[in-house]
């Protein structure tokens, strides 16, 4: 009845979403009254970091066949670890890789899969948990009677809680089979030094109000100053001013950062769906009637080309003084 958490690595290191999933799993295990075990694959020897987030045991797999992410092989490795520890609940972060393994694990184990989870269960019997639905326009309470569960946690929704525990590591092995390797990775093209949108604490986003791709310099400058990721509205990605990977909204990426700054975005319902879970929203728009102001915490009616440079200056001054 233990809880197993897959502690995902990116290029050998953990990211915030991993610590959140581990912390969730530790709290869940505590609630159930069982132990929590973490599994890492192709991690560069920083597995003991996970102890800080409440796990006492970390299984590490360092098999050459699993150096590159492979959803079939990783799913099977996670299943093997669950079987060996008797875990019946598997916690995964709802990242792109997490989404690529979770349904495979659930289907193979006959487990109930609940994705986009936002909170610890409100009840353990039946297991009931809150998740995002209708593209963040609503929430739903999902319940399952199944013993076997796969729970996938929305990044940035729950904080990682540090404890004073420390973790012991134990090596675990799984070798990719022929069937696991039916697809092979040819190349990985990673945007360097960029903050992942779904994980970013602050997101600075631009819309059609910015009038052209050449005007994104100030968005990028503002983002860099805040340590933020950059995003855009759907029309901006469709016109090609910004890459599709930056499109936030109902049919793009759903985000829930601490702070979302929307510049030159009117706030159509499709855009709001993807961003309204942000804890604080700042809207800068020339149009006082823009619907986005109704969903915002702070608003400035003004021309982005005047307001954003002033905001950059004000933030620089703030940084010097603090």
């Amino acid at each position, binding site marked *: 009845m233990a809880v197993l958490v897959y502690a995902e690595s990116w290029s050998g290191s953990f990211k915030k979403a991993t610590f959140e999933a581990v912390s969730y799993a530790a709290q869940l295990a505590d609630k159930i009254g069982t132990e929590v075990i973490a599994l890492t694959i192709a991690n560069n020897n920083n597995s003991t970091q996970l102890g800080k987030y409440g796990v006492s045991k970390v299984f590490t797999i360092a098999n050459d066949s699993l150096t590159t992410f492979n959803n079939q092989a990783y799913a099977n490795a996670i299943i093997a670890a669950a079987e060996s520890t008797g875990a019946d609940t598997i916690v995964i972060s709802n*990242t792109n890789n997490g*989404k690529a393994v*979770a349904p495979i694990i659930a289907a193979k184990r006959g487990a*109930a*899969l609940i994705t986009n989870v936002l909170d610890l269960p409100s009840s353990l019997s039946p297991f009931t948990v809150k998740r995002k639905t209708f593209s963040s326009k*609503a929430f*739903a309470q999902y319940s399952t009677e199944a013993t076997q569960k796969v729970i996938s946690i929305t990044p940035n929704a729950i904080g990682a809680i540090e404890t004073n525990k420390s973790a012991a590591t134990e090596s675990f092995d799984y070798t990719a089979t022929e069937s696991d390797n039916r*697809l092979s990775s040819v190349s990985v093209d990673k945007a360097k030094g960029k903050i992942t949108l779904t994980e970013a604490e602050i997101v600075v986003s631009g819309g059609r109000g910015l009038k052209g791709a050449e005007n994104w310099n100030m968005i990028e400058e503002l983002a860099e100053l805040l340590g933020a990721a950059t995003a855009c509205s759907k029309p901006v990605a469709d016109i090609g001013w910004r890459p599709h990977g930056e499109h936030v909204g109902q049919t793009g990426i759903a985000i829930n950062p601490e702070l979302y700054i929307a510049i030159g975005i009117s706030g159509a*319902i499709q855009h709001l769906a993807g961003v309204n879970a942000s804890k604080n929203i700042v809207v800068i728009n020339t149009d006082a009637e823009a619907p986005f102001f109704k969903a915002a915490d702070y608003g400035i009616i003004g021309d982005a080309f005047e307001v954003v440079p002033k*905001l950059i200056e004000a933030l620089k001054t703030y940084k010097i003084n603090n």
Partner: protein
Amino acid sequence: MKILVCISHVPDTTSKINFTNNNTEFDSNGITFVINPYDEFGLTRAMQIKEATGATVTVINVGSASTEPTLRKALAIGADDAVRINAEPTDAAFVARLLADYAEEQNFDLIITGRESIDYNGGAVPGMLATYLDIPFVNACIGLELKGTKSTVIREIDGGKETLEGNLPMLLAGQKGLVEEKDLRIPAMRGIMMARKKPLIVIEAGEAVKQTSVLGFELPEAKAACTMIDADNVEQLVELLHSEAKVI
């Protein structure tokens, strides 16, 4: 080559979401239903492959009779035939099992779905279906090129993309990028006329287990009034973000 495109019947993206029956059911009153936007990219890509290779394209969904106009729309866009499995799609494992039961008998070379539906957003059916059929699964697929049975696909990863190769059959859960927005097909008059004569068969749902149930829905809390800041006083915004919102 045989291609299966799974189609979800979902509320239009501009829909205001409301619930009924003590917040336990989606209120479809006044809602326009459409082909799930993520599925449209896959359907268009399937049309392009059909035109290039002579592949046949079957569209399928799990739903009640009310979803048939959505399947007809897919036929009008160019799919050859449509299948509706008659059941309410309330659980991912249930839906995936019903789709697998049908697909298993048909030996499709390629199955394309959306990466998730914009209503329940589970993102679970594609990977479960691929696993039940024991074929490879590519999530968040943003590119597909075929050369015979060899497939080169691109998938979105956190902060980048990855190119993969493999042989058909496989299942791709697509999104924008599989084709560009501007290339999406919409039904033309001729297509709509032809769609009326194309086969749309209805299959009764077989045995499948539901793993989850929805106890209730809730809407996000309304935001308190927005604090307006003068455009000449952006320092106030910085101060509020620091002292009130505590985000910087």
